[in-house]
C-alpha cells in the first residue's frame, strides 16, 4: 500500500514527563505538544528545584524549563504519586535532553538519529470487518528508550479514532487492529504516529474502504409525550448510529416529509397530537408529541388576583406571628 509520510522531526517543543519513586526519576511517555497544549500549558508556579534542559554536543544548555512537581493524592484512596512535567523548547542543535534536580542530573535522553517509518506489508485497498495484523518498520535506527507508536483510524464521517499505543522496542512493530466496530465507508485511512523519544513522525496510509456500518436514526428531541405551546417551537435533534451522512436524516411530521438534517425546529403546528418521525434510508422511528394552546388550556374564569393575597387565611401549624 502506498503511504505518505509527514515528518515533524524538528519539533519546537517536547513535553517531558515522569514520576519520582524512591528518589529515582522514572520517565513516562514524552509527547510532542499540539498548539492547544502549548497555549494551555501552565507556567510553573514556583521553582521546584527540578528542571529539564536541552543541551548540545558539548553539553552547553540551549534551553531550560522549570519542571512542575506535583505531589498528588489519588483521590478516594491512600495512594499518592509525585509527578514531574515540563514543556521544553528544542532549539536546533539539541543533542540530548537532561532532567536534573538542582545541579544533580537524574536522567538523560539522547536525540535519536533520523528515522523513517513505513508499513511493512501492503494493506489491501478494501478491508473486511475483522481483526487485521499491521506491521510497521522503523528504518534508520533501532528505537530507543521511550519510543512508541500510536495507531489511529480516520473515517470521513467520524472524529479520528485512536486505536492503541505500542511500545517500540524493535525495528518492526506489530499491531492487531480490530476493525469490527470502527467507522467505515470510502476514504478511511490508517495512521501511525511514531514517537522516537523526542520527535514525532506520522505515517498516513492511502485511502482504504471499509464496509460501512448500517445506519440507524436516533431521535434525541423531542422526547415522547412532550408538550409544546402553540406559540413556541419544537426542537428537533437527532443522531445517526452507524455510518452515513446525517444530512440524509429526514424528519416526517404527521406523514409528510418536512425537514432534513440532524437538527432544526418546527413552528406553526396546530394544537393537538402530532407524530414526529425520523427516517434514514429504510430505517424509521417515531414519537408522539402534543401542541397545546396555553390560553385555551387555562380557562379565564377567575379573578386575576389569587386569594392567598386577599382572602381569609387558614394557618397550618403556628401562625406567622409566632415565628420570632
Amino acid at each position, binding site marked *: 500500500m502506498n503511504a505518505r509520510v509527514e515528518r515533524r522531526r524538528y519539533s519546537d517543543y517536547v*513535553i517531558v*514527563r515522569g514520576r519520582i519513586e524512591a528518589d529515582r526519576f522514572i520517565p*513516562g*511517555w514524552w*509527547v*510532542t*505538544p*499540539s498548539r*492547544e*497544549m502549548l497555549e*494551555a*500549558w*501552565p507556567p510553573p508556579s514556583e521553582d521546584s528545584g527540578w528542571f529539564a534542559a536541552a543541551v548540545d554536543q558539548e553539553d552547553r544548555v540551549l534551553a531550560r524549563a522549570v519542571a*512542575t512537581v*506535583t505531589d*498528588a*493524592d*489519588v*483521590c*478516594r*484512596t491512600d*495512594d499518592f*504519586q509525585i*509527578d*514531574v*512535567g515540563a514543556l521544553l523548547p528544542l532549539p536546533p542543535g539539541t543533542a540530548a535532553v537532561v532532567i536534573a534536580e538542582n545541579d544533580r542530573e537524574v536522567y538523560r535522553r539522547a536525540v535519536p538519529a533520523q528515522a523513517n517509518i513505513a508499513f511493512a506489508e501492503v494493506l489491501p485497498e478494501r478491508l473486511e470487518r475483522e481483526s487485521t495484523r499491521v506491521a510497521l518498520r522503523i528504518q534508520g535506527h533501532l528505537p530507543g528508550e521511550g519510543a*512508541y507508536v*500510536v495507531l*489511529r483510524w480516520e473515517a470521513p464521517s467520524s*472524529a*479520528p479514532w*485512536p*486505536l*492503541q*499505543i505500542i511500545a517500540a522496542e524493535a525495528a518492526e512493530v506489530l499491531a492487531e487492529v*480490530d476493525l469490527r*466496530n470502527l467507522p467505515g465507508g470510502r476514504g478511511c485511512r490508517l495512521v501511525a*504516529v511514531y*514517537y522516537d523519544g523526542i520527535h*514525532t513522525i506520522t505515517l498516513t496510509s492511502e485511502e482504504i474502504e471499509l464496509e460501512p456500518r448500517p445506519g440507524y436514526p436516533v431521535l434525541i*428531541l*423531542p422526547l415522547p409525550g412532550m408538550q409544546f*405551546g402553540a406559540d413556541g417551537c419544537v*426542537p*428537533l*435533534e437527532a443522531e445517526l448510529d452507524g455510518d452515513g451522512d446525517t444530512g440524509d436524516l429526514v424528519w416526517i411530521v404527521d406523514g409528510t416529509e418536512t425537514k432534513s438534517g440532524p*437538527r432544526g425546529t418546527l413552528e406553526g403546528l396546530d394544537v393537538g397530537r402530532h407524530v414526529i418521525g425520523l427516517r434514514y434510508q429504510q430505517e424509521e422511528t417515531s414519537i408522539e408529541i402534543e401542541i397545546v394552546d*396555553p390560553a385555551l388550556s*387555562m*380557562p*379565564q*374564569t*377567575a*379573578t*386575576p388576583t*389569587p*386569594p392567598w393575597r386577599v382572602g381569609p387565611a387558614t394557618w397550618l401549624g403556628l401562625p406567622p406571628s409566632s415565628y420570632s
Partner: protein
Amino acid sequence: MLPAALAVGEVTLTCYVQARSPGTKAGGDDLYYNSSATTKLRFHQRRNIRFRYQRWDSATVTAPPDASCRSALRVEGTLLPIPDPPIDALSPNPVPSNGRLVEDLFAMKSATPGASGPEEIWFTMGNFGQGGVALPSTPWTGATDPTRAVSAHEVAHMFNQSHLNHPVCGPNNGDALSAFPDNGQVIVIGWDQWANQEMRGATDLMSYCWATAWMSPERWHRLFLKVGQ
C-alpha cells in the same frame, strides 16, 4: 428542565401557573386562578466537550461495568457547565492494567488530531473504590472510578480546581473550608435529573465527602469561567 437545543442565544421563557380550587365557584364548579410570568434569558456559548473512556482490569481487580462508566460520565456531564457531552469507549475495552494507563491515554490523546485540547477529556476507569487522579502534566487526561462524584471531582481538577479541606471526610491538602462560601455546604437544593430527585444537604464536590458531593454555586461559577467557550 429546558432541552439543550433550546438553550441557545436569547430565549423568551414564559411560565404559566394555574391553581384549581375544587367546587368553590358558584354552582359548585371548580374555580381556576391563572398567572404567568415572562422573562428573557441569554444563554452563553459553552465549550463542547467529548468524554472518552477506557476501562481497566487486572489479575485482582475486575473491570467496572461498561454501563456504570457511561452512567457516571453522563451524570457528571450534567453537573458541569458544558452541554451534554458525547461519550465514547476507547478500545480495547477493558485494557489490562500496566501501571501507566493515564500516560498511555495521554500519549494517544496527544497523537489524535482535535483531541489534544480541552475539547476532549479522556479517562481510564477502574472499578468502584479505585479512586481518581488528574495531574497537571497530563492535561485533560485522568483516572476515575465509575461514580459521578469522583469523575466530576477529577474534571474539576483539570480545570484548576483545588481540593477543599473537610474535617470529617478529608482531604487536608487543599483550600480551607472557612475560605469557601457557606463552608463548602451546598445550601441550595440540587436536582438530580437522572434519579429524578432532589439533592439536599450536599457538600461541594472538591472535598472527599463522596456520598453527598454536589456542585455548589461557587464551584460552578469558578468552573464556568475556566471551562470557557
